[in-house]
């Protein structure tokens, strides 16, 4: 088992596709979770204040709009890092994990390498578990990477904004890492399952992405008020990932004290 695991690791870190996914993963965190939202929040349009409004009204509206944009911006601060990164993982991160899971298993069918491996010695179960263990290690690393990248980005945002740097409690960080790993593992498992079922990478990724990106959205976009239909949501992957991520924030983000934040 240990030796088979080492074999999997060797295949893993020498595989270009894995590095491409890692790069996409990091780019996703830096660009889509931090850089673009930052640019957007920092340039929210000024509220249109009627010229003839009384001055106290003008300043009130000004304050309100500043509070709103600060509220948005605060998501990007270190203090909210765990919950914010996790919400990203539950969405796009899941689809990347699905692709990784499908690649891990499907390629061996595509290349016909499964028979080469099995003729060596490990035995079907050992080979499978070694592979799953390696996949798990890769996913854990992905989550860790996302959190590290998120921490660095949030520091940069706080620095630019001049906000006070406060970190989430260690317990929340650890729980966030754990929850992220669970979410990715479930999505990756779907990829593994589809790739095993169809003995192919492409079909598994195609179907998996269709499910993740389109099907759930369609199903829950349907205006069906039926109660049992709404209950059925709990069996869907994307919904569940979202629920788990949301449980960290109670659906909203902590806003840091504005008095501290402003200089």
């Amino acid at each position: 088992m240990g030796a088979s695991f080492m074999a999997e690791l060797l295949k893993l870190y020498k595989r270009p596709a894995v590095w491409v996914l890692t790069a996409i993963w990091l780019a996703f965190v830096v660009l889509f979770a931090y850089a673009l939202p930052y640019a957007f929040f920092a340039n929210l349009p000024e509220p249109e204040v009627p010229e003839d409004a009384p001055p106290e009204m003008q300043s009130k509206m000004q304050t309100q709009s500043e509070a709103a944009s600060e509220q948005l911006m605060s998501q990007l601060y270190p203090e909210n890092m765990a919950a914010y990164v996790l919400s990203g993982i539950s969405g796009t991160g899941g689809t990347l994990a699905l692709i990784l899971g499908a690649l891990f298993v499907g390629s061996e069918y595509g290349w016909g390498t499964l028979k080469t491996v099995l003729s060596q010695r490990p035995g079907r179960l050992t080979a499978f578990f070694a592979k799953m263990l390696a996949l798990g290690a890769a996913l854990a690393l992905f989550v860790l990477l996302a959190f590290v990248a998120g921490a660095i980005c949030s520091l940069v945002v706080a620095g630019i904004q001049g906000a006070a740097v406060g970190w989430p409690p260690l317990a929340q960080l650890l729980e966030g890492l754990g929850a992220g790993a669970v979410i990715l593992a479930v999505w990756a498992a779907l990829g593994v399952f589809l790739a095993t079922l169809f003995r192919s990478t492409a079909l598994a990724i195609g179907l998996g992405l269709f499910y993740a990106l389109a099907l759930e959205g369609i199903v829950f976009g349907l205006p069906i008020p039926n109660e049992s239909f709404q209950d059925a949501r709990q069996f869907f992957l994307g919904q569940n990932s979202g629920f788990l991520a949301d449980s960290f924030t109670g659906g909203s983000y902590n806003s840091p004290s504005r008095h501290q934040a402003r200089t």
Partner: protein
Amino acid sequence: MIPETSQTDGRDDALLVETSGLTKRYGARITAVDDLDLSVRRGEVYGFLGPNGAGKTTTLRMILGLIKPSSGTATVLGEAPGAPAGLARVGALVESPAFYPYLSGRDNLRVMARYSGVAPSRVEEVLQQVELSGRAGDRFKKYSLGMKQRLGVAAALLKDPELLILDEPANGLDPKGMADMRAIIRGVREEGKTVLISSHLLGEVEQICDRIGVILRGKLVAERTMEELRGREGGLLVRAEPLEEATRVAQDLPEVEEAQVADGMLRITVDPARAAEVNAGLVNAGVRVSELRMVERSLEEMFLELTGGETV
């Protein structure tokens, strides 16, 4: 790490591979392997011959435990197919060599060495054995078919196996590559190992085999040692005057099974070792014998006959 299994255990130690009634069906209509009884003895090179689609690969897959037989049994080194204890002593290349395209030949072998639990130092040894050391750093996807086959054999040799199973290792090789492959297999045999090698061309393997089995539409239709194969259908070709007289005399000789005229010569079915007696018999009867030689029936011809001319 590989359990040291005594070489004298097992019920019938002489047979490294033994199948009994081995059958594989795909659906109701395809019987890929049909009631096959195959046995490979320790120390021999066994040629498993048959035209494309005859069921060779399917048989080897069952022997390795890669697929399950529909019925019948197989024993490999005294173990059930695919059992780790048996697999530890078997090296195999089944169908086309399949490796990770993005890894170099060397890295592919390092991966396989980890799976089989052998020392990493084996990698360079087998690379040398198949003469691939020079190109071991290139990616597998850049390899020619011949290099891929060599890498497949190298992977099969990693475990330093007692039994080497090679499925059409000469496929796609040029004559030089084929000669190299034969040299590798001879080397393996000289180390006292057993080789089970499949091919659809007798000519590829007849020089190295001790015994061959011919499979046709899933059935084993013949199993012979090379001596049997060369000797049995053998006989003598005699140029004699007068021919009719010679035929009559030859038919009456006790050691002769049959004598007929073919292409102006007398063809006598007889153990070639009895040539002197036959000659004496003819001469004593007053027949003038001007030429007497052994029939060298080509193996290819025999193979064609056994397989009903289906071979390529």
